[in-house]
């Protein structure tokens, strides 16, 4: 009895397996459009940024296709874009199979996703499949020191965030300017890089790193770090916490009555709902200003208007603009490539120079993007750009002690 | 009066009781004897509502009870002392008794009933605040009986009273049961492997074998019969 079932089940397993394999093998499709693929976390831990990025891509595709698509010289006509997005469930090992699936569907390029866990797993696949990858939030410079040829990062990097933060400090009048910086280092490669550059740039500009403390991505209690910074007399704080961590950090800083003149949390406060959930405690907090709805670059107004129309209930987060911008870069490269093969598109990407909704994007030899270094600050319910190389910005506000805030 | 008419009962896919019909008089002491695995406990569990008959019916004082859930059967006046006592081990003696009086009818008279039970089993009063699993075997059996009596039953089902107890203790407890029956008029239906004890205590006896009733009669007559003596008392007939 037992063994009969063994045989039966083995046969069933074999059958299911082979029908799956053959079904996949037979599903060939002829490309009638420009196929671009992305594996994105639509569910799970990283879905917040993932869905925003996907929305940015989708809106950009819609805008291009409304105009008939991308002009491809080889065929001398406009070809519409077909964007294929698969969910990787915030699981990096799924990213690999999704990207291989997209490869099998003959996409001409990959678009990146939000969370670095997935991006890191994915870009190796892009490199080995020789498919150009236009990232959206790969802020780790080290990735680009590996000699990859197909990876492009049209976004702000660790060193740009640090530079923008110090630029903001420079803009504060001499008599009020913070001098001693507390660096809270997140124990991931991005945090390590930020620390490296913070030391390098601070030295150049005459700031001291008076305190350094490490924390992990799952840290939920920051009281010890805050107390240490307070007793070391640090009047500026820099960190790249996760979004929930930046919320907890601010709450605990208030509880422990620590209000340094400048506080920069690169992630978290850039979320559009940050003011909504944190209220006026978010005041004076600085964050990445890579993209905001108010930026005066061409096309940004329309992006914001169309997004608000399409998703009236959603707040517009920074990843939407970043996604939109990344797609603009790719579409530009495709039209300049004049052909629809992956190698030509890669070639075209290396010579990118386009003004997107977040400003001008170019790439260096490694694929590291050069984008405007911008920093933003929450000022009375609005995320205001305080540092930008391209236009006049609002003044930097120095934080007042908690007890003096209303 | 409990009337069982032609019930078939299954344990999963296995049939344990075949077409059993019994009449248990309300006032007296009745016993069902049989060897291990003969189906006698199954009959009891079916009366108490833990198992449901696939065919046949059970009624108590004219009311059909086999369709009721177990806790309603308690409400209807049938309480069971389960095999192996099954006390709530982590609770005190008091709390165990309180659990016996959970039905609405019983709860109203909880204090009076408890006083009576402490009367019947004075040792329980002494141990009232102790955890049930600290009692001796005999005390545990008393508590189990007391707990079931808390529900103010008219019929008490007792499953394997003598299991794991010393003969003296069995003797004592069965005497108490007899008293309860005589003074309070609570009917007792006893299921036992200890055939002699059961038949000496009971007025009427039934014999079950392989899930079927094979004999019925006055307890004293059964005790003397060859059938019982050969099968259960290990005495060869001459």
């Amino acid at each position: 009895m037992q063994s009969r079932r063994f045989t039966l089940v083995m046969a069933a397993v074999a059958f299911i397996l082979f029908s799956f394999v053959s079904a996949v093998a037979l599903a060939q499709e002829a490309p009638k459009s420009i196929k671009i693929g992305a594996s994105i976390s639509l569910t799970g831990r990283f879905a917040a940024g993932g869905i925003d990025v996907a929305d940015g891509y989708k809106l950009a595709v819609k805008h291009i296709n409304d105009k008939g698509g991308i002009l491809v010289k080889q065929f001398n006509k406009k070809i519409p874009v077909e964007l294929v997005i698969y969910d990787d469930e915030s699981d990096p090992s799924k990213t690999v199979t999704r990207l291989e699936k997209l490869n099998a569907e003959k996409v001409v390029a990959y678009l990146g996703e939000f969370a670095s866990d997935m991006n890191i797993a994915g870009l190796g696949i892009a490199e080995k499949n020789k498919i150009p990858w236009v990232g959206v939030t790969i802020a780790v410079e080290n990735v680009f020191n590996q000699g990859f040829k197909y990876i492009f990062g049209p976004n702000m990097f660790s060193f740009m965030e640090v530079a923008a933060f110090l630029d903001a400090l420079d803009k504060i009048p001499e008599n009020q300017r913070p001098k001693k910086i507390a660096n809270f280092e997140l124990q991931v490669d991005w945090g390590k890089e930020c620390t490296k550059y913070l030391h390098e740039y601070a030295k150049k500009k005459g700031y001291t790193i008076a305190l350094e403390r490490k924390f992990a991505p799952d840290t939920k209690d920051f009281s010890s770090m805050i107390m240490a910074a307070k007793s070391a007399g640090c009047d500026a704080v820099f960190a790249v916490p996760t979004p929930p961590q930046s919320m907890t950090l601010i709450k605990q800083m208030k509880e422990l009555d620590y209000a340094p003149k400048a506080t920069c949390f690169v992630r978290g406060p850039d979320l559009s709902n940050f003011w909504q959930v944190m209220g006026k405690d978010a005041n004076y907090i600085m964050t990445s200003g890579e993209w905001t709805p108010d930026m005066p670059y061409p096309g940004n107004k329309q992006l914001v208007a169309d997004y608000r129309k399409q998703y009236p209930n959603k707040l517009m987060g920074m990843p939407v603009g970043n996604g939109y911008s990344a797609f603009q870069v790719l579409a530009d490269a495709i039209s300049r490539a004049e052909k629809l093969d992956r190698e030509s598109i890669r070639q075209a990407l290396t010579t990118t120079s386009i003004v997107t909704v977040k400003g001008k994007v170019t790439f260096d030899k490694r694929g590291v993007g050069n984008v405007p270094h911008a920093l933003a600050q929450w000022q009375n319910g609005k995320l205001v750009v305080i540092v930008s190389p391209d236009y006049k910005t609002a003044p930097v506000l120095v934080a007042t002690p908690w007890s003096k805030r209303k | 009066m409990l009337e069982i008419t032609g019930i078939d009962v299954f344990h999963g896919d296995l049939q344990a009781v075949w077409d059993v019909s019994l009449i248990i008089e309300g006032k007296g002491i009745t016993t069902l004897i049989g060897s291990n695995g003969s189906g006698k406990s199954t009959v009891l569990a079916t009366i108490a509502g833990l198992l449901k008959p696939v065919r046949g019916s059970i009624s108590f004082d004219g009311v059909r009870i086999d369709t009721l859930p177990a806790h309603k059967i308690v409400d209807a006046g049938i309480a069971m002392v389960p095999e192996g006592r099954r006390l709530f081990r982590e609770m005190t003696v008091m709390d165990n008794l309180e659990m016996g009086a959970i039905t609405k009818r019983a709860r109203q008279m909880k204090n009076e009933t408890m006083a009576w039970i402490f009367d019947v089993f004075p040792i329980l009063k002494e141990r009232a605040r102790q955890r049930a699993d600290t009692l001796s075997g005999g005390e545990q059996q008393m508590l189990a009986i007391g707990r079931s009596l808390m529900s103010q039953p008219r019929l008490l089902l007792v499953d394997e009273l003598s299991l794991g107890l010393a003969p003296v203790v069995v003797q004592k407890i069965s005497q108490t049961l007899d008293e309860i029956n005589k003074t309070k008029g609570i009917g007792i239906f006893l299921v036992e492997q200890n055939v002699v004890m059961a038949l000496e205590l009971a007025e009427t006896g039934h014999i079950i074998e392989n899930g079927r009733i094979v004999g019925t009669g006055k307890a004293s007559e059964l005790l003397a019969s060859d059938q019982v003596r050969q099968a259960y008392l290990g005495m060869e007939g001459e």
Partner: protein
Amino acid sequence: MVERKKGLVLAAAVIVALALVPFFTVREYVFSILCMLFLYVTLSQSWNILGGYTGQINVGQAAFFGMGALVARLLWVAGVPFYLSILAGGLGSVILAIIIGLPALKLRGHYFAIGTLAVATIAQITVGNILPGISFLPAQQMATYSLIPRYYVFLIIMAAALAVIYFTVNSRVGLGMEATRDDEEAAQMVGVNTFKYKMIAFLISSFFAGLAGGGFAYFNASYYWYLPFTLMWCFEPILIVFIGGVGSFLGPVIGSVCYVLLKELFALTLGEANLLIFGIVFILTILFFPKGVIGLPAKLRQLFYRRGNVVGR
């Protein structure tokens, strides 16, 4: 016995047929998904020998999977041939299992389960703190990266795991394991050295989990060092075994096929709601096949012959 032989022949035939797949298709997607499938079969079967056959619910499989991946990757990137690296990864896990197993296997039930979960969490945090960076393949290995050798590595690891575990559980050792699972105290009383069987199962389990980790390290072009230590690798093998049927040899195989392929299918077709639908299907499966998918034939038989109606337990 004849039937069992037939089953083994069929199993061998399936393995051989799988080995031939690369000759019929070159689609890398097929390989990548089959690689994941083999990985999950290996990992869940390695969990099954300890959890299913010996009754020790290990919720820390990620520690052993991760250890295998860590050792293998470090050695491989340092220039050691990959097959040696992967073997070393398996041994690394075994060493970890010896260190952890000696005290941990004295724990029973929930305590062993949560204790191993704690070990896995500690491993994840520690590796994340010591190696916060990314593990890249050297550029020249990246340039020659191909999925086909990875496919065979996973296939071989899976076949080895299935064979070793099959013959172990069907031997005298297997009987000892099952005795340990069914009633540890009773087994001890009749003179079974339950600790020995638990340890054997634990070592086999960790070895193949480590090999699977090594395969994973060989498979991924770039990843974070802590990735193979994430708790997902603890939970998924358990789920898969329970879906398929715990303590049966084919359970993990069936569970993996259902879990990996169904999830993939849903993710490709259903977009944002795919986990919602998967969750519902998953719950319905568990409710209707409480003993796992392998209980399906018994369930059907029961439907046809069902007569008794039992309430209570």
